[in-house]
């Protein structure tokens, strides 16, 4: 492939690629994101290749492994174009049937289609409720391109924005466009990207650096990973445009070592981009030079903080430094360095292509455009969703997410990763917006959204996130290190039923100081999960401390499993399943849990047949009297004994 030397070359190449592609030719796309990989999508893809060969359809049907489609709950996903027939949870064994029925006979395999609440089968991917309510502007191309083939990206108009920026716009115009679009940083802070770019551009000192922050380390969050895995060129294109606007010639992608597929696809993309002339010296013949280095992070959550990330790129331990002088002015090796999140960079080509007016027409007053969320936890449709800013949490969780599984009641949603807050039910109609989320004590953060239901204990949840942060704080500054340590100790003792009166107030006191005195954003936001749970779920804390009761039945020290004598049918199931042999009894003998042996794993509750429902979880109450000697024999009681 010869280097492209002008915008015309790029357009010619695009036409050539499109000329060789028949839009009506069937194409089987298999989602190959990390989640689908876990479901053996690679075997499915191989089965398709084999099956198509066996039927001699190589010339008639294309097979494409794409990036993450987002509907991870139902993977591996297979979408057959041009009709967009969407099959869910496809196993390698299903492939011969799909090939013969859909590819050859042009009929549907009904059992693999999505079935909605009314029992209706849905054929097209875009008609599935999960997708229907989304607007997938940034993430949507993931399902159309093979991340390892730059041609796929170019065919969809890829690198068009770069050509437009380089040949039709001055750097100032690009900067102005992004500023007018009011694009806010998608990594957590929500700082306007255009203003940050301008700061770096105007800061004295050369060289200037631009950086992609792909150090996504929050539990349950994976959209940056999926972007890099599924559509790395969109990120590189945005980065190059930003570099042009800022006047930078060296970029970095700081990506976690734990994301092997992202690193692999990114490196492939970089090589292809260099080969085509989208990176390197004299990009597209414009005279602009820019190249990108990949820096693999060693897996510290705190390295996602900009100054820590830059310290890590310098080759030192990723610890934050005071930022009274912004990294945009003094970053890597003291040079002006502009850092943005993966999603922020991937949004840039859209803004250049379609203009700031179009971008600002989406979203709310303070937050423009769309945001990608990892919708996880107690929600029916787990996956990655992209919605316009301003959508309410209710729409996101119930319309797209399909509500809470097993008819349970919604309790709260944690947004913004471990240092975000938990938003209770009363704020479900809150529009998703940087400012609105901050107002209720949480934050947009990197787009994590963990849904919790009535079986989640809020004290335990706060404890979990604090425990995560205890290990992920760098430990440099005193308030964060010692504050987390003491807060975690207090939460541990509350969960263990040893909470003391005044603990809630003490948590609040420490929180305030940690928030006000910590060095970096990690420390300053550490108290969020604690403060928000105390604010909205104070009754749960009080139940733990005063009544030694865990209302959600989660905290092991405060719950007891108990078999109700009247309901036990002596079926022996729990007795066999108990992993520690804590249940005594026998045929026709009421089963009894030995509380000294019980490890509270809950296996007995899970296996007790629902029609008996004899095992219950008690919290905060006295255990009923044990069965009297001699009365443990069951006689003439329902079920098979009758």
């Amino acid at each position, binding site marked *: 492939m010869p280097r492209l030397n002008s915008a015309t070359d790029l357009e010619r190449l695009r036409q050539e690629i499109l000329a060789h592609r028949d839009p009506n030719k069937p194409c089987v796309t298999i989602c190959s994101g990390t989640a689908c990989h876990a479901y053996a999508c690679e075997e499915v893809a191989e089965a398709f290749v084999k099956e198509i060969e066996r039927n001699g359809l190589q010339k008639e049907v294309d097979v494409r492994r794409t990036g993450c489609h987002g509907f991870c709950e139902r993977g591996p996903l297979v979408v057959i174009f041009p009709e967009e027939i969407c099959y869910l949870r496809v196993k390698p064994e299903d492939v011969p049937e799909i090939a013969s029925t859909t590819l050859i006979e042009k009929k549907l395999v009904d059992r693999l289609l999505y079935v909605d609440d009314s029992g209706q089968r849905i054929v097209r991917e875009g008609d599935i409720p999960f997708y229907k309510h989304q607007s997938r502007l940034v993430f949507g191309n993931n399902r159309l391109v093979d991340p390892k083939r730059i041609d796929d990206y170019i065919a969809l108009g890829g690198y068009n924005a770069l050509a437009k920026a380089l040949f039709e716009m001055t750097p100032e115009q690009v900067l102005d466009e992004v500023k007018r679009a009011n694009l806010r940083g998608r990594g957590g802070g929500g700082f306007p990207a255009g203003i940050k770019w301008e700061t770096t551009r105007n800061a004295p000192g050369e060289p200037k650096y631009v950086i992609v922050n792909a150090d996504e380390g929050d539990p349950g969050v994976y959209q940056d990973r999926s972007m890099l895995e599924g559509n790395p060129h969109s990120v590189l294109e945005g980065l190059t445009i930003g570099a042009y606007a800022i006047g930078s010639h060296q970029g970095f992608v700081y990506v976690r070592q734990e994301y092997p597929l992202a690193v692999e696809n990114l490196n492939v993309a970089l090589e292809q981009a260099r080969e085509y002339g989208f990176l390197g010296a004299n990009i597209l013949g414009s005279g602009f030079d820019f190249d990108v280095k990949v820096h693999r992070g060693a897996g510290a959550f705190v390295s996602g903080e900009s100054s820590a990330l830059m310290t890590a790129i310098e080759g030192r331990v990723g610890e934050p430094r005071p930022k009274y002088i912004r990294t945009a002015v003094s970053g890597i090796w003291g040079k002006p360095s502009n850092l943005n999140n993966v999603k922020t960079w991937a949004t840039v080509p859209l803004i250049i292509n379609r203009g700031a007016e179009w971008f600002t027409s989406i979203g709310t007053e303070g937050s423009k455009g769309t945001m990608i969320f990892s919708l996880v936890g107690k929600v029916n449709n787990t996956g990655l969703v992209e919605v316009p800013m301003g959508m309410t949490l209710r729409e996101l969780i119930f319309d797209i997410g399909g509500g809470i599984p097993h008819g349970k009641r919604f309790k709260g949603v944690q947004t913004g990763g471990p240092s975000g807050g938990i938003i209770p039910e009363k704020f479900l109609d809150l529009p998703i917006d940087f400012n609105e989320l901050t107002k209720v004590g949480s934050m947009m953060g990197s787009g994590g959204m963990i849904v919790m239901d009535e079986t989640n204990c809020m004290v335990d949840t706060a404890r979990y996130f604090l425990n995560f942060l205890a290990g992920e704080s760098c430990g440099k500054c*005193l*308030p964060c290190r010692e504050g987390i340590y003491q807060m975690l100790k207090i939460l*541990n003792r509350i969960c*263990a039923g040893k909470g003391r009166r005044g603990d809630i107030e003490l948590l609040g006191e420490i929180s305030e100081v940690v928030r006000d005195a910590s060095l970096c954003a990690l420390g300053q936001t550490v108290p969020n999960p604690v403060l928000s749970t105390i604010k909205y779920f104070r009754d749960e804390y009080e139940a733990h401390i005063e009544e030694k009761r865990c209302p959600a039945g989660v905290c*092991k020290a405060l719950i007891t499993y108990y078999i109700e004598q009247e309901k036990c049918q002596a079926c022996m199931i729990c007795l066999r399943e108990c992993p520690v042999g804590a249940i005594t009894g026998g045929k026709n003998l009421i089963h009894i849990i030995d509380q000294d042996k019980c490890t509270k794993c809950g296996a007995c509750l899970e296996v007790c047949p629902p029609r008996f429902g004899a095992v219950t979880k008690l919290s905060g109450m006295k255990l009923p009297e044990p069965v009297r000697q001699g009365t443990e024999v069951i006689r003439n009681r329902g079920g098979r004994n009758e």
Partner: protein
Amino acid sequence: MSEVTLTINDEKVKAKEGMTILEAAQSVGIDIPTLCHHEKLAPYGACRLCTVEIVRGKRSRLVASCVYTVEDALIVKTESEPVIKIRKMLLELMWARAPGVQVIRDYGIKYGIDRTKFDVEPNFCILCGLCVRYCAEVKKKNAIGFIGRGTEREVMFFPEIANEECPKCGECYSICPTGVLPSNYALARVPHFTWTLTPFWQNLSPRKNIATESNPSTGRNRVKDT
């Protein structure tokens, strides 16, 4: 270098541009408590005890005075109410960690702290990092460094370098505000420096991961082993 005038505790102070608030305050004899600051070392901003309140216009902010550089017309309050509140809490937190360290006790007296509401787990190191930074910045040897992250952070001599460098230097001993560094080094070198050796304070106060097993995403506590 040009001069700026700022107000520290109602006192007009002239300072050179680029100076930190802490340096400007010290130059006129205003004492701001700090654990991690040393004039020979680069500003670090870790102990946060030197937090002060700055006012510009109507906005007030809390900043670490050892890293925040002076600005013209800046108003600084080194002992305002929110500042004292932070220092008291930080000292209490440190009291729980290192109740026997003199510098903590001295500051404790100043701010009326003579006990802590937290459980005391005595440790000798206050993690100010003076030794680590002195070795790296002044001596350029890196014979001592931090290991561990977050609440498990510790200071440790690196045997390969320490074996070579420390016997002829030992300058960090005097910089350590706790005074236990020499004994730690002495102990570390006895059995010919093995990597498995742990500093003696670790044996006194094990700071293990204090959380228990639980998984909030499933809402269940599961037993791993039977």
